[in-house]
């Protein structure tokens, strides 16, 4: 076992586990957004940033940093709270997140994080990008206005379903999740229509068609469940 300290609490963790896993086992809350059990960590959203005292206060993503003997980790501090709020503000400012009529209103991880971290204002100018809704799929739709580019759908599709339908197109702020290198979702030849991407999505970006305001409840834990139940060779 590896011994480390998180928020001045001595913690033991399995070798090859991450700071996030160790913190969760010790009952210490670290907010996450792009992380989802069963999917490979990518450290994309940076909301789980923690400070490592004996690495000169360096900030590392807890979800993607393996534990090491003797690490002295700060998981919750005023500085981290401020950084996490700023990251959230940037996410909200980047696209058109309008909770009032969103299908996921009340069941949204982004919204819950804003509440938890006390993000009551966005101090950056909103970008208001003109983004489309693709509802060409028979069962599902994707609203790029609500996408935070966490990549959970892309990983769920590749790692759990094995279909590799979803990918990223474009660069930086112009990045979009798209199906089959830019086909309308409904015309995708690789999509199996399994809906794992929808269940993995933390916001209302991916939704089941026919759901009205606040009706879309997601089951992200489903991904870990199906992975665990899967027979191994």
């Amino acid at each position, binding site marked *: 076992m590896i011994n480390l300290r998180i928020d001045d609490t001595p913690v033991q963790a399995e070798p090859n586990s991450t700071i996030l896993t160790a913190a969760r086992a010790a009952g210490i809350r670290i907010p996450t957004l792009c992380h989802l059990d069963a999917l490979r960590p990518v450290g994309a959203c940076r909301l789980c940033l923690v400070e490592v005292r004996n690495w000169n206060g360096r900030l590392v993503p807890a979800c993607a940093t393996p534990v090491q003997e003797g690490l002295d980790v700060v998981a919750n501090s005023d500085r981290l709270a401020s950084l996490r709020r700023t990251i959230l503000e940037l996410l909200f400012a980047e696209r058109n997140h309008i909770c*009032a009529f969103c299908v996921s209103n009340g069941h949204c991880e982004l919204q819950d994080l804003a509440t938890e971290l006390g993000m009551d204002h966005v101090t950056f100018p909103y970008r208001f990008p003109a983004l489309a809704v693709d509802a*060409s799929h028979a069962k599902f*739709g994707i609203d790029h206005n609500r996408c935070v580019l966490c990549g959970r759908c892309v990983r769920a599709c590749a790692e759990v379903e094995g279909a590799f339908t979803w990918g990223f197109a474009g660069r930086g702020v112009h990045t979009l999740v798209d199906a089959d290198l830019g086909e309308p979702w409904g015309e995708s030849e690789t999509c199996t229509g399994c809906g794992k991407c929808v269940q993995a999505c933390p916001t209302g970006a991916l939704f089941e068609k*026919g759901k*009205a305001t606040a*009706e879309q409840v997601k089951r992200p834990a489903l991904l870990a469940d199906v992975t665990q139940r899967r027979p191994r060779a």
Partner: protein
Amino acid sequence: MREIKVPVTRIEGHGLITIVLGRDRKVSRARFHVTEGRGFERFCQGRTLWEMPGITARICGICPVSHLLCSAKAGDAILAVRPPHPADKLRRLMNLGQFVESHALSFFHLSSPDLILGWDSDPKARNVFGLAAAHPQLALDGIRLRAYGQEIISALGEKRVHPAWAVPGGVRAPLTPAARDRLAAKLPEAMRIAQDALSLYEDTMGNWADEVATFGNFPSLFMSLVGEEGAWEHYEGRIRFVDAERRIVADGLDPARYPEYIGEAVEGWSYLKFPYFQRDGYPDGLYRVGPLARLNCCDRIGTRRADEALGRFRSIAGGKAVTSSFHYHYARLIEIVAALERVEAYLDDPEILSPRVRAEAGVNELEGVGVHEAPRGTLFHHYWVNEDGILERVNLIVSTGHNNLAMNRTVAQIAHHYLDGAKVTEGLLNRLEGGIRAYDPCLSCSVHAAGRMPLRVVLVGPDGEVLDEKVRDA
């Protein structure tokens, strides 16, 4: 040329009245401007059909239910389904709750200070707080009646404001027996308040003969939905137009084919469009909608107490149409009674507890129109979608819009009657506002419910010099 500008308060939103005087000091023109533009028809484009009730409900915080239901009905048309009967009844029940809530707000909170305390009383006390000081029971009653309407809405939609409950194909959740019983227990008090208010109006309307004669008192057409055999209707039915003699001008019109008989004109000086009856052209095709129009159009209401009141209402015009917009207040109070009587009937109907409340379907039509009666008048939502159910075009004709021409004529009539060219009087200002307020226009929010009334009037002389200026702070 002289011009007087009057910002309008104690209505839902921002408006402005300008009165232009000729060199003879007579009113040469008066206009009611709606000074806010919101762009719903544009930014709904690209959204999904299923979100539309949630989006359009945000048009208003006073009558969100009206847009919610109308949007869901347009959605029904695009899905090409009929909601199950229990859903239909529950939607009607919610709309009746909206009538009670909105009409109570208009009468008790916004207009009764003028009617009860007097048009020339001290403006500092002529608001809902002054009313509470002078007539505590009346003010309390108003609050309770409005709360009852809101309770109907929240019993169904879980929220008093902006419930995202009606959806294309039906509604999301049925009514629980506990909520039904709660509503039934409070109904007698609501009915008592509504009848008291109606009696109060009937006893005092003789005091306002001058206002009745000048607050939009002119012959015009009236439009509303009517139900089977000409019954008062708030949710379905066919469109009827009557004239000032209460002769039927057009009847049985399909509401979904409104572009065949309603035209929409645009003026550069207002953000609100000007609908008109096509046969008579613009602007002669002026018609009025809302409580006054519904009572003028229908043959009967269909419930005992409301029909008795309708008889008294008809008698003030000798059986012809009541043409003074002042009596919108009267009609509103009768409609509260009518709504409560229907609520009573629905609460006794076991079918409203059925869990069968939603028809599921995909996109089966590419165009759909939803029409019903909002508290302020006939509301149209017209959507065009693509094969995936994404909105390509939206046309909304909101109740206040139908009354735009009538409100303009009302302002001109009041200005002609009360304006003394040399002086801007408190009484004139309040009557201009009161004339508009009679229509209970919904331009957006309810600022004045908190007692604020900022008002600025500038009288400008022929060469642009300020002759008189009056400022009243909040």
